[in-house]
Structures are given as structure tokens and as C-alpha cells.
């Protein structure tokens, strides 16, 4: 009974203000500037309570861009491990989803979900800011579903 109530409160808090940390594991910057654009006035994702955070220790959601390079693989894992649970991952861009155009390059080990679990996939090279917002809102919808069932 008490646990259920705590879960509901937690989900409610997360839906209203998910904090986001961004990690680039080998991206060309294309997706990264589009993510930054979603936090600026025209797209303004803060209207959904989403806030960009500096430290993974403060974050609920990890947004990943780029294929995972050999050098970044361990760092990606470490950043994910530093986030407090419950935590969610959004993979943004073709490279994060599949390695994209960099498949087969010697520095690339693969896509993001080969390294950490991914909840939402946003395709595109790079995805438009609207698509990134859609991904975030879908995640919020998913959490809302969890809250209703808790």
C-alpha cells in the first residue's frame, strides 16, 4: 500500500519535471546541436518541465547521440551507472540507433543499445527538433502509463 503510493508520487514528480543529461559517444555534432536547439526559445522543451542538467547524478533521462566509439564505450557505461534509478535512455539519430553511416569503421563498436538499455528511439540524420520533442513526450506518456498502473 505504502510502496504503491511512493511509486505514484515518484512517477508524478518525474513526469512533471524530468531532468536530462546529454552524452555524445562519437557523434558528428549534428544531433547535438539539434538537441541544444530544442532547449532554446523556438522549440522550448522546458514547457514540458524538461531541464538540461550538467551532472548525470542529477538526471532522470540520458539522451545519447552518435555511434558508440571504442574510446567512449566505457565512459557511456560510467555515465549511465552514475544516474540514480529509475532512469530512462533516449537514443537520438541514425548513428545511435544503428551506427548509421559509420558502421564498420574501426573506431566504432556499434549502436547505443548494445551498451546500455534504451527506452525511446528517435531516428533521423539528424532528427528534427520536433522529432526529439516527440520522443521526450512519448517517454513522458510511457511514465504516465506506469503511474496509472502503480
Amino acid at each position, binding site marked *: 500500500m505504502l510502496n504503491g503510493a511512493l511509486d505514484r508520487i515518484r512517477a508524478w514528480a518525474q513526469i512533471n519535471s524530468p531532468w536530462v543529461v546529454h552524452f555524445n559517444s*562519437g557523434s*558528428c555534432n549534428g544531433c547535438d546541436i539539434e538537441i*541544444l536547439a530544442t532547449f532554446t*526559445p523556438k522549440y522550448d522543451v522546458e514547457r514540458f518541465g524538461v531541464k538540461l542538467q550538467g551532472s548525470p547524478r542529477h538526471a532522470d533521462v540520458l539522451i545519447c547521440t552518435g555511434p558508440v566509439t571504442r*574510446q567512449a564505450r566505457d565512459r557511456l557505461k560510467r555515465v549511465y551507472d552514475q544516474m540514480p534509478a529509475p532512469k530512462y535512455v533516449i537514443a537520438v539519430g541514425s548513428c545511435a540507433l544503428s551506427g548509421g*553511416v*559509420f558502421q564498420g569503421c574501426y*573506431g566504432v563498436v556499434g549502436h547505443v543499445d548494445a551498451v546500455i538499455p534504451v527506452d525511446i528511439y528517435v531516428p533521423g540524420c539528424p532528427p528534427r527538433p520536433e522529432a526529439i520533442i516527440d520522443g521526450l513526450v512519448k517517454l513522458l506518456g510511457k511514465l504516465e502509463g506506469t503511474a496509472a498502473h502503480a
Partner: protein
Amino acid sequence: MPESALDRAETLLDSSGRDANRPEPNRLDVRVDPKDLLTAVASLMDARWGYLSAITGLDNDSQLEALYHFCSGADIVTLRASTDRADASLPSVCRLIPSAGVFERELSELFGIDIQDAPDTSRLLLPDDWPLDVFPLRKDTDVSNVPSVPVLSQPSEKNRFVVPIGPQHPALKEPGHFEFTADGEVVTAASLRLGYAHRGIEKATESRSWIQDLYLLERVCGICSHVHALAYSLGAERLAGVTAPPRAQAIRELVSEMERIHSHLLWLGVTAHEAGFESLFMYTWRDRETIMQLVEDLTGNRVNYSANVLGGVKIDIDAARAHALLNGVDFLEQRTRHYLEEVGGDETFLRRTRHIGIMSAHDAEVLGVVGPSARASGVLRDIRAEAPYAAYLQFPVEPVLRHTGDLEARVLARVLELFESYRVIRELLDNLPAGPLVARMPRRIRAGETISRVEAPRGELFYFLKSNGSEHPERIKIRTPTLCNMSSALHLTVGRYLADVPMLLAGVDPCFSCNDRSVHLNVAGDTWTWQQLSQHAREFYA
């Protein structure tokens, strides 16, 4: 007839080099014996003949070859030094050219050429777990299954406090890693580790076709994607003996300048953010959306626009789009005037920029700085003016020079360049040549070597292309402007306060934000637990 710069170089290299030849009208290739390399480099540097723009490695079977490209205006002198594959080694030129360090580290890692007397032999690009004896750009290296080797942790030195920055940070565009050694608040040393985004693109170009490479190379950088595709297309066209039609060249210049506008506005916003000027950050990014919309209307995409094809462009501009672009440029020009007042007049902002991080013209030359960062120190390095490409000969731009060399000059140089971009866009739209968009490319690109240089928003972008006449390029070497500018940024931080570091790094436009606060302590290879750490703290401060 006056002596040309290439003639002068040929005279200078007369004693140290041999087999001088001119593969293209603006290029001089000279063979140099490794033991005469330093003499040859010294004779060019002593006569102040240009600057070292890049070092290209080549694998010629039993020999490995290093190409030292020196540029002066449109002229390029290449010193070609060969060394035996089995025992490859070349002397370091860092004593003469301090900025060559990053190029040499790249050469030694990717080709396995031992650099004698190199000041810094630490890893720059390859992953930590990459074996020491696997050199990916050698032709016989199979990179499909490179084993992982244990990572050795560096012994930490006592009595120094190291502030690591990166690779993870929200506003970090490039996942690099810097280590600043600090004495109190003052930086005493700085070091650089790249490679977090090292994907191995140069190797990948060799297994893809000339056409596939266009799309791969456009994705080297998502901010200046057009210039990468442009440098590659211009080089491939030159090898094939094809010239793109005038209308295509003009549209290439148009898109280049639109890209410069979006990139400079992006940079202005990020720099304002580093200075804590959040409202300027938000306003510039709001206005940047104007140019993003126009780029999308013209090309169909906001970021990787794919405007180029080999032989021309695939987009055209009609009256309605030209009209929209002119309106957009009018709006942005008026906004940029406002930004100029802000960055040039706001007392608080000026305290973060004026007289900070001064780089003299001499330092900028010696450190091999390119682009707006060099122009802010009064060094005229702008490929658009020095070696006009695409349509820059018919529609020239006037490089913006500042002379104080501080952060303020670097900010002003970029903001003032925006006005030049607006002006040239208007001129291009008023006088756009008529005609076809694409010239026919031959099915095969004939064997040969060429160098293609363009002015990216951050400075000179250098491409070396070698064709063997087959479907795939033999070698493509890319030297991006940030590689040149990064070492100068590090040089500037030494002796400054830690608090100035983010601004100094941002000053050369590789966008970095505030210092990473998590210090990873390694003691004799062990990672400390929280209990050990607090115990250590209690004892240390007792």
C-alpha cells in the same frame, strides 16, 4: 617577371631537397631525405615561407611516406620524406614548429612512424585499449577485429591538482578530454586527449566508392557539413579534370555563407553561455532559427544539407526562395547590429573578454592558428581571399582583421564577419549566373594527387586526395581547423585563472563549458572507495 613564391621555395630547398616537380600550377613537391628534413623545414621557416598546414601519411608498400604541406596564400609546398616500413622513423619538427606536435602524434599512431625527439608521445586519437602495434591506416592492417589490451593507468604525480574537463558535458559539442594542472586558481600546465569521437573515417573512405564518400564525409562534422562535402567535391572534380558550372559554384558559395552564419550565431550563443550571459545565448539561438529555416527551405534539411554532388549541386534557387532569403538576411543583419552593441558595449561581458587570452600575431603564426582566431590576432589567413575557390573569385569577401588578439577581438571578428556574409549573399542573389547545375563526371577518376582547401567557419579545412584510378580513393586525409586551433587554446590557458579556461577554449570555437567537477583519483592503479576517500580527507586536513 618577378620571382614567384614557388620559385623562391625551390631555391630555398635547393640544397636539402631533390626531384622538385610541380604536379599542379600552385604546388611544388620536393623529395627530402629524413636526415635532411629538419634542414629543409628550417630553410622554409627561417625565410618565413608560409606555415605548416598538415602532415599526410601514405603507405607505399615497402616505404611509408610523410607529406609535410606548407601553405602560403594559394601556393603549397610539399616535402615528401620516405622511410622504411620495417623500421619507420622520422625526426620531430616540433623544435622548429611547436604546433606540429598534434600532427606528428596522429602520424605516429595511425601509421606507426616513430617520431624521434617528440616532446609528447601520449595517445591522441586511438582508444586506450587499442594495441600499441596496430596501425590502422597502413594498407595491410585488418581493422575488422582489433583485440582489446588492458588499459594501464597513469601513475599520478604528487603535489599537483589536476582538473579534468570532459569527455561528458551538456554543452560540450566535442567529447574531448583536457587536463589542467592548477596551482591554487592558476593553470600551470594543460594537456589534451582526443579520440572520443574517433570513428576511423579516413580508413573507411578507402573501402567506399567516390560517391558514397561524399555522404560519409559530409558527416565528419554536423555543424560545418557543407564545407566538408565542398572540399571533397572540389578535389575530386580537379582530379577528374571537371569544373562545376558557374551557377553551381555560386550556389556552393551561397550555402557556405549560410552555413557560416548559422555556425557563428551558434558560437556566439555558446560563448555568451560560457560567460554566464544566458539571455544573449537564448536570443542568438532564437534568431539562428531564421537561417536554419532558410537553409531547410533551400536544401530540404536543417543539418546535413547534401547540397553538393560530384560535378555540381543538386539544389536550385528560384525567385521566391531568393526573396525569402533576402528578407531573412535583412532581419539577421539588424539583429547582428544589436549583438555587436551588446558584445562591444556590455561592461560585464567586456570584463570577461577584454585583455584576456592575448595572442600576438607572432604567436598565432608560430602556433599555426587558422580562421577567425588568427584574423583576431591580425594574421590574414582566409582561404576565401588567399586561394579563392567555388565562386569566391567573382564574388569576393573582405576578410575581417582585428589586431588586439584578445577574446574581445575573437568575438568581434566573428560578429563582424557576419555582416560580410550578409553582403555577399545579397550580391550572389542579385547576380546569380544562369546555366546548368551539374557538369558530367567521368565514370572513373584518374590516378593522381590533389589538395583541396576551403575556409570552414572555424578556419582552413585541408583535404588531401589520392586516386589510384579505381572505384575507391587510395587515400583521403582530412585536417580540420580545430586541430590547429586547439593547441593554441591550451597554450593560452597556462598562467590564467581556471575561471577563464572555458572562455579561452570557446574563444577558438570548439565550444566547451564549465569545469568538470568529478575528480577520478587513481592511486597505484586502484580506484578509491568513498570510505577511503573520506578517510584520506580527514587525515589530510587533520
